[in-house]
């Protein structure tokens, strides 16, 4: 089979959508992209706010140094801002870059997000553990248990984020490498 044969098959019953069909499709699935992502960002931001409310109304923040409390607020605010920025970064190619450039930007952005996620996990659990534990004296078996729980919490959260992003980065990198092999102009 040559390329012209392929093209001939491709042209069979070219199924383009009418304007009405497109409008119907948009109306039918209007929840699927922007609304879904906006909802996710709002839920996560809401969870952070709720966490702050619980910590500052039910867990005696006055027993902590103001620095510990401020640290928790700053870390949680960073999480909220990152979520809102992620929502704004939903655009994959707003400048109309070619595929090679667009992939490069996507990979860079996802690596940055991965690094941020790990750093944020460390900061977040440091702030939470600091808030709950710096006001009490710890001794005995708890002294060893706490670092273990602390480490595990960071590891589990980081693992989920890394797993999700690494698969996506791997897929993008594969495509980028193939384009580079075809003389991509980077």
């Amino acid at each position, binding site marked *: 089979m040559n390329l012209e044969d392929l093209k001939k098959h*491709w042209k069979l019953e070219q199924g383009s959508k009418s304007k009405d069909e497109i409008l119907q*499709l948009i109306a039918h699935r209007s929840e699927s*992209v922007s609304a879904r992502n906006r909802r996710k960002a709002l839920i996560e931001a809401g969870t952070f706010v709720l966490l702050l409310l619980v910590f500052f109304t039910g867990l005696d923040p006055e027993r902590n140094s103001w620095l510990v409390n401020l640290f928790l607020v700053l870390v949680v605010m960073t999480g909220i801002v990152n979520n809102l920025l992620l929502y704004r970064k939903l655009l*994959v190619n707003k400048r*109309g870059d*070619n*595929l090679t450039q667009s992939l490069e930007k996507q990979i860079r952005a996802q690596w940055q997000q991965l690094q941020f996620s790990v750093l944020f996990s460390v900061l977040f659990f440091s702030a939470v553990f600091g808030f709950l534990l710096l006001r009490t004296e710890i001794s005995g078996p708890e002294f060893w248990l706490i670092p273990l729980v602390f480490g595990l919490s960071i590891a589990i959260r980081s693992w989920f984020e890394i797993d999700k992003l690494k698969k996506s980065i791997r897929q993008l990198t*594969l495509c980028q490498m193939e*384009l580079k092999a075809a003389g991509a102009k980077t």
Partner: protein
Amino acid sequence: MCRIYRDTSEDREDLFQEILFQLWKAWPSFRAEARVSSWMYKIALSTAIARFRKKTKQEEILREEMIPMQEEQNVHPEKERLYQAISLLSDADKAMISLYLDDYSYEEMADILGISINYVGVKLSRIREKLTQILNPQNHES
């Protein structure tokens, strides 16, 4: 493009809508230096490839066995076979062959993909070989 990059009709609808969303958002930055269709292709390809979607085990098995997940209604059987064969190619190869089949020139293909124009012909002939092998495995074995 949605038919090539996604296996199920629901995923295709999702991708189609997402491409429209991305086009709508990117439209203010469009400069009339190239054809609108080339610009649209750049956005659509970036969206289709950048949006990672984890495949279920069942989809992987069906894909490997080349069993149509949900045959499109009113699609010619030959074209359906071609769709399936193309869906087995890599993301970069899918992009190149769909541009070729949609009658883009080598120059436009190089511009949309960001690759050297000299490689377009070479790469296309390799893709053709792969597709022939997928579509006619018995001929290739003999």
